[in-house]
């Protein structure tokens, strides 16, 4: 069964550095998402992306964050100038359509540790 793949599985970075988290969504999916889960807290929506632009974003997704689909297969989340509180598990997801009738498929996540 096709799956969403995320790399790396674990990223350690120093405060103030830029990181790029990578995702390869399922090939025929058109909608892409990033969620994050700070340890011990809820899974939180960050952003959704369709047709090469952001379709929705949360309050968390400020100017520090950006997303990009640089080619036909990758979907990236960039965090500029990382802060300690950015430490979390980041999940990428994709779906065929944007409605609730089309299930989200999640990757295994990238654990980001900011020191």
């Amino acid at each position, binding site marked *: 069964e096709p799956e969403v793949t995320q790399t790396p599985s674990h990223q350690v970075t120093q405060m103030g550095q830029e990181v790029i988290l990578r995702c390869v969504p399922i090939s025929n999916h058109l909608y892409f998402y990033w969620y994050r889960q700070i340890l011990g807290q*809820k*899974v939180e929506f960050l952003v*959704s992306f369709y047709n090469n632009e952001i379709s929705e974003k949360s309050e968390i997704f400020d100017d520090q964050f950006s997303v990009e689909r640089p080619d036909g297969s990758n979907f990236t989340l960039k965090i500029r100038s990382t802060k300690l509180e950015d430490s979390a598990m980041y*999940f990428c997801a994709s779906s065929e359509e944007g409605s609730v009738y089309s*299930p989200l498929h999640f990757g*295994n996540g990238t654990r980001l540790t900011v020191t």
Partner: protein
Amino acid sequence: AQSVTQLDSQVPVFEEAPVELRCNYSSSVSVYLFWYVQYPNQGLQLLLKYLSGSTLVESINGFEAEFNKSQTSFHLRKPSVHISDTAEYFCAVSDSGGSQGNLIFGKGTKLSVKP
């Protein structure tokens, strides 16, 4: 804005015992509800969902959940659990009027099945 409450952070049960994982959501005109499961070292997987129609929904591995509008609940149940059901379970609600881009998750319930 929608919110989801999972009252139990951990639920330990013995194999073959019944289990109920509780989920309550804040009221809204239209509600789309989901249960996701996360097995160790894996991403989130959709377990079941309520979109419309019958208030009782079932998954392929014996779980069921009932949408109760008057109690604003969507509790997950299984009459007899297996060791392999050990995982973290997340209740979620769609907050985008039919779009699933912005899923609001609960904090999760860790189900631990003991032999």
